[in-house]
């Protein structure tokens, strides 16, 4: 069920797009109305979620320290794993966001010959970083459809992405690798019993969605050979707010588009918000300097305490007998 429902959902979206894209009268809906709606939902939703996190207070300074603290001057502290100041926090966050530092630490524990042993295990890190890097590259390459003239840096990206010089149109590696990485992330989800056990439909849905997007994109570029000039004119129409349906760009393009729109609209309401959330994690984005600088809790309030006076009142005789000094004789 957990796998089946999201699979059917993605398949349905795909088929719906094929059908709608084939009906000329409905092309405006799928090509213009839905994309605009999706982008608005994405931006508004994303911003709302970020603002929601941003506005919520951080009452305590709770970094997870993964290295030596700043202490005596002759003990070397680990600024990257246990930052003592803001600039080091930026470095720690950069390592986390760009290189997935914490995942890189991953270990695997198992019982071997009656003993519990732990070993380094980097597969998830590799799969994740390849997935995100290729996704980003694909996204970057698509920017050429959104700007005119195409900036030089995008040409460089394309050049690097196609340096193996295979086939016509020339093969971009990122798309294929993205597809493989998605398959890997899916495969581990159903293959590793623990991961399968914890997975929700919401974990499979975006994987299927991204798989379908990548597959339809590859199909369009290498097999049906979509009218790329028409696509660019169509997208520039959307970008310049003068949308016009381009005849003959093919139903597979509309399927690709609707899947992307689904992803955009789904994004702010899903776990995909980890993309923004990672920046707000107090265990990573704070300096471990709470003994040096007082961290302020905006909602700190007075609490009922048991004062020394109350304590002495209760135990005065016993304290006197024990020879303890008293405030009130």
């Amino acid at each position, binding site marked *: 069920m957990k796998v089946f429902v999201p699979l059917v959902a993605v398949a349905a979206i795909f088929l719906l797009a094929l059908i709608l894209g084939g009906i000329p009268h409905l092309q405006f809906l799928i090509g213009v109305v839905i994309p605009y709606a999706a982008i608005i939902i994405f931006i508004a939703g994303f911003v709302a979620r970020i603002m929601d996190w941003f506005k919520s207070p951080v009452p305590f300074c709770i970094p997870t320290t993964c290295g030596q603290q700043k202490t005596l001057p002759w003990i070397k502290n680990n600024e990257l794993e246990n930052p003592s100041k803001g600039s080091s926090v930026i470095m720690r966050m950069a390592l986390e966001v760009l290189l997935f530092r914490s995942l890189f630490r991953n270990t695997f524990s198992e019982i071997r010959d009656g003993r*519990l042993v732990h070993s380094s295990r980097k597969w998830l890190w590799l799969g994740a970083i390849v997935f995100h890097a290729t996704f980003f590259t694909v996204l970057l390459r698509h920017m050429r459809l959104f700007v005119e003239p195409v900036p030089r840096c995008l040409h460089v990206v394309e050049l690097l992405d196609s340096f193996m010089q295979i086939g016509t149109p020339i093969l971009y590696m990122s798309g294929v690798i993205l597809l493989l990485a998605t398959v890997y992330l899916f495969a581990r989800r159903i293959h590793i019993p623990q991961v399968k056990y914890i997975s929700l439909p919401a974990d499979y849905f975006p994987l299927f969605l991204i798989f379908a997007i990548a597959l339809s994109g590859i199909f369009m570029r290498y097999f049906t050979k979509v009218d790329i000039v028409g696509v660019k004119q169509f997208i520039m129409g959307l970008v310049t707010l003068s949308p016009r349906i381009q005849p003959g760009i093919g139903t597979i393009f509309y399927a690709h588009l609707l899947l992307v729109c689904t992803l955009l609209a789904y994004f702010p309401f899903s776990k995909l918000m980890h993309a923004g959330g990672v920046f707000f*994690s107090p265990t990573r984005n704070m300096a471990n300097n709470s003994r040096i600088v007082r961290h302020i809790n905006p909602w700190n309030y007075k609490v009922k305490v048991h004062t020394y006076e109350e304590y002495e009142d209760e135990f005065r005789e016993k304290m006197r007998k024990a020879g303890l000094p008293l405030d009130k004789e």
Partner: protein
Amino acid sequence: MSKTIKPEEMSKINYLPPEKEWMDNKVDIQKGMFCHGAKEASLAAVDFPNPRQWSVTDEDWKLPSNWQEIVIKGMAERLEKYRSFKVFMDVCVRCGACADKCHFYLGTGDPKNMPVLRAELLRSIYRKEFTKVGKILGKLAGGRELTMDVLKEWWYYFFQCSECRRCSVFCPYGIDTAEVTIIARELLNLLGLNIEWLAGPVSNCFRKGNHLGLEPHTITGTIESLVDDIEEMTGVRVNPSFNRKGAEILFITPSGDIFADPGIYTCMGYMILFHELGLDYTWSTYASEGGNFGFFTSNEMAKRLNTKIYAEAKRLGVKWILGGECGHMWRVLNQYMDTWNGPADFLQVPKSPITGTVFENAASTKMVHISEFTADLIKHNKLKLDPSRNDDLIVSYHDSCNTARGMGLFEEPRYVLNNVVNHFHEMPEHTIREKTFCCGSGSGLNASENMDLRLRGGFPRGQAVKFVRDHNNVNMLSCVCAIDRAALSTVCDYWAPGVAVCGVTELVANALVMKDEKKRNKNLRGELLPGCVEEDEEDEDNDEEKEE
């Protein structure tokens, strides 16, 4: 129960999750895995909600009729107050990196002990009650209703988390299950669903100043008896003072150090060290607890207990505070105390009267860790040390979860150890420092009725100790945590028999050559030092004759 299961049996753990989906698997509360419910009197003593007589094994937990409303309101309030809670409810992608990082999961194989699933127990209710998608799609979106079964499941599993933060080290978003457990326990506490092992010490600490409920004369009496022991071993009579106004330093350590074996040897170590330095310090009977079990019940209770430290420092007019060896105490001191009860502007930035070192890293809290203090002394050659006195010990070091992942105290104790012992071996790399494994009894779970849970939770640590015992002949596991000293003794007896547990300062005091000491032939435990023989009556007589 645990006594009847052999370690070989207990270490056969099935990590394969059941066929049935986790939401459909009703909680099965098993004997040996949980602590007794909090008593009426303990809850009432600190104005905790819903004090009543109840038992975990009863079907009816005697909750207020609107308990669901209380929980949901409590969640809403905490979502407003804690960014951590909100973000951690939202961003988990269930990648599973945390799954095999939890000592309770590794020791039980119970999938609900995987950190991700422990958080999902709460997250599923969050989705259902606080997200649009969850409200509409329900189970399809990973949401579920808050039922009595769910509540019992929360209680069972949030008291099977020791807030050690190991999972948080591995999470790509830094999701900290300790934070989730802290909030979950607060919610349970709103309904009076605490455990007695926490509620009892908390009410003790509130009124009497320490978890054990030691009254002022008992504290002085107990410490005096330790002073006698010190004299017997060293020939030196140390002279601790209590509640003394005008002392330079207030010393605070967990009450377990005063009372429980083997913590008392560490306590003797503190007093020997301070005496040798001629330190102008005082104990307090009012603030006689470094630890803070309030931290494991609610943020407010933690603050109420923690208040005493600064209040007492102010009343006594000390310049700064020195803290003993304790794990969660130091997480609280490092990350919470100043925020709750600061600013401590009536204190001075700590300065070692012996070396002149100013502890800039405690510029605001004004509180220094004993390992920082001792490391500085050794670095400045202020201690005469004879590590060979510890030569019968082959030592390893257990990083306490909280000083490791909530502070980053790694090198100080190691530097100290390397100067006071000659034989030191680290445990395997994935089980130390920021990846250290919990003793299995942290966060107030060191009761006796949940021994099964504690031994299972101590399995990864026990296995690592066993490894160095078998490969390096390690026979002593040192640590800087009072709960560890008590809990690891049990864990080692079970998983790695032959390995004893001690505090770092105990080893310091063994090695410390005091100015006025007699010829020492015993360590603080009264065991013969290497190469020494028991002095019998005759020898003593002879000695006396010679002196005459």
